[in-house]
């Protein structure tokens, strides 16, 4: 069987001291940096990119990849403990992870997301080992119209997860899409809504937005309500750090489904991880018998998106390596690291550099095992962070947000954006408007518009293109079904509200 040959090639290639050390260094740095607000995979990789010039390309790639998926682990830790997401996919983790931490269950939450990350990644690795080249071909059949419809599905999923009615969710998606319009319009090159500021030519900062909407507004709300003074103390006894049997039972299905969703959406360049986690969350809520529990610290609400997110992160390597099509900025960065070394990613990379390709896949397995081993003992340490009195902790968090946002872009305007989104986020919280759908809308807005317009340029203005292509049609039908479902059975929580977030002083 070819699969076993691949596994053998991969592990033979990766079992050298140097590669294992770089793999460890990569996942370790990635995880640590993922925890720091703002400093995600992108910033860490760009800081460590020069190292790859001095080692062989496969070693460099293993390290960079480790940073990439290591950061995914770290990102959910900050989301659970402090409501500080760096990306839309970790924003999803905030929805149920942070309430869990407030209930004194930060330990189990981190434990479960760690295991879900691991399993999601392993799912994608299996996919890589078996059908990587085929999967890559599939990704190429996605045209502009199909991308448009996929994004519609992602946005509808995001809107349907709002807990205060689907109208609020859709409105926030629309606000996000509108904010995504700020900057240079790709199709015409026009600057839109930039108010004459060159610093806005590339749009608003996603990290500043996430930090302002989630992190800063949460700090203000905590201080105003005084909720932190009666916070549930975190137990750091070992048995309270691990999940109970019920958690595990609730997790198995969501993790598996999340892994499948993530692995398939991750193959598509550009959109993978964020859409995957939202769709996984929306899907779990859709099939759940207790949809009202989501957003209050429900276990499937963290494990499904976490599994999906990590599966997508691993699967994103498929188009990058086999087609030379980088899915996102981080992938583009890794691709250029290879190109500097004279390796051209593309359909022939598997044949011409089997050691590199299968070695990388094998390093995913090792890196994820390392992360699992490293993370579980660290849970106690992370949870201990929450035993620091909040009144000492929050000024530090606030400054870390500022430093992190600035470190990513070297632009003080981005820090000013944190300030503005902090205000907006606090007002939204008071008005029961949720930031997560807005964040996805913002990320997908430019892509949605580009693909919509591009599809219509290519079809010479025929709207029928969206229903003539089978992929596009089925995605649109799925979106319609999801909307119909949400309208039919609205998750009415307007009456009971969310006690923990209600601020009345």
């Amino acid at each position, binding site marked *: 069987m070819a699969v076993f040959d691949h596994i053998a090639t991969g592990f033979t290639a990766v079992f050298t001291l140097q590669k294992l050390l770089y793999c460890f260094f990569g996942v370790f740095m990635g995880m640590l940096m993922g925890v*720091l607000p703002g400093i995600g995979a992108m910033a860490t990789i760009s800081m460590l990119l020069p190292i790859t010039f001095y080692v062989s390309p496969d070693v460099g790639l293993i390290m960079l990849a480790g940073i990439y998926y290591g950061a995914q682990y770290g990102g959910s830790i900050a989301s659970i403990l402090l409501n500080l997401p760096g990306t839309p996919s970790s924003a999803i983790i905030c929805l149920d992870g942070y309430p869990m931490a407030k209930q004194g269950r930060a330990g189990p939450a981190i434990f479960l997301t760690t295991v879900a990350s691991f399993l999601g990644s392993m799912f994608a690795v299996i996919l890589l080992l078996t059908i990587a080249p085929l999967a890559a071909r599939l990704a190429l059949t996605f045209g502009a119209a199909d991308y448009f419809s996929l994004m519609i599905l992602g946005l509808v999923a995001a809107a349907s997860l709002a807990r205060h009615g689907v109208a609020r969710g859709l*409105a926030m998606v629309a606000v996000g899409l509108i904010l995504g319009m700020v900057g240079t319009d790709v199709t015409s090159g026009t600057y839109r809504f930039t108010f004459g500021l060159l610093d806005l030519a590339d749009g608003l900062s996603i990290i500043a937005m996430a930090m302002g909407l989630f992190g800063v507004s949460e700090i203000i709300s905590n*201080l105003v309500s005084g909720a932190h003074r009666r916070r549930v103390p975190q137990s750091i006894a070992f048995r309270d750090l691990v999940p109970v049997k019920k958690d595990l039972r609730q997790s198995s299905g969501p993790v598996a489904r999340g892994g499948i969703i993530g692995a398939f959406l991750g193959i598509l360049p550009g959109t993978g991880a964020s859409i995957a986690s939202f769709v996984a969350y929306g899907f779990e809520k859709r099939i759940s018998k207790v949809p009202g529990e989501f957003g209050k610290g429900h276990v499937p609400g963290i494990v499904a998106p976490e599994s999906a997110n990590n599966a997508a992160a691993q699967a994103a390597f498929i188009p990058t390596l086999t087609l030379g099509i980088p899915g996102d900025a981080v992938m583009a960065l890794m691709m250029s690291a290879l190109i500097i070394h004279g390796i051209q990613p593309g359909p022939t990379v598997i044949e011409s550099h089997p050691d590199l390709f299968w070695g990388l896949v094998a390093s995913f397995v090792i890196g994820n095992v390392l992360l699992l081993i490293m993370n579980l003992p660290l849970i106690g340490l992370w949870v201990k962070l929450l035993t620091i009195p909040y009144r000492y902790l929050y*000024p530090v968090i*606030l400054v870390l947000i500022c430093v992190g946002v600035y470190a990513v872009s070297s632009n*003080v305007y981005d820090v000013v954006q944190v*300030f503005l989104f902090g205000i907006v986020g606090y007002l939204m919280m008071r*008005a029961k408007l949720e930031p997560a759908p807005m964040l996805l809308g913002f990320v997908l807005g430019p892509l949605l518009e580009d693909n919509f*317009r591009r599809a219509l340029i290519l079809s010479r203005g025929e709207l029928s293109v969206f229903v003539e292509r089978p992929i596009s049609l089925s995605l649109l039908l799925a979106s319609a079904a999801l909307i119909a479902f949400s309208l039919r059975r609205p998750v009415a929580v307007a*009456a009971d509200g969310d006690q923990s977030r209600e601020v009345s002083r």
Partner: protein
Amino acid sequence: MLAGPVLLLFGAAVFAAAWTYEIGELRRMGPGYFPMLLGATLCLFAALIALQDAKDRISSGRRARRTIRSGTGNRFQWRPRILPLFAILLFAMLLETAGFVPAVIAAVATAGFAERSNSSLAIAVIAAATAIFTSTVFVYLLGIPFRLFAV
């Protein structure tokens, strides 16, 4: 609840602003086409929210009024609302003019006073510790080229 009306206003503003850009046609849309659609869409959802909120208010009117009364009973707390935000702004202003360390210290100190129970001493200690921690991590370990002191 102001959510509906405010969003309606925002949507209308976007819709209006979209017309300052070229709208174009479906075959080749101008930069204003999509914002126009989005502005209109947002108006629609905002109207829905306003309706829903109005309905909720009628059905639970008494309860809501009680909440408002208890809300005005306390003095409006400006410290936790203004100081954290001001801290961010201060950081942005000082970072490139005064340098990294002064910006961190000023931001921690400003934010610290948002919580009444924080003593000046505690804030000073946190500020110093944060400055040392962030300088070590970001500047020395990560090698991000911040200027610690700009002068």
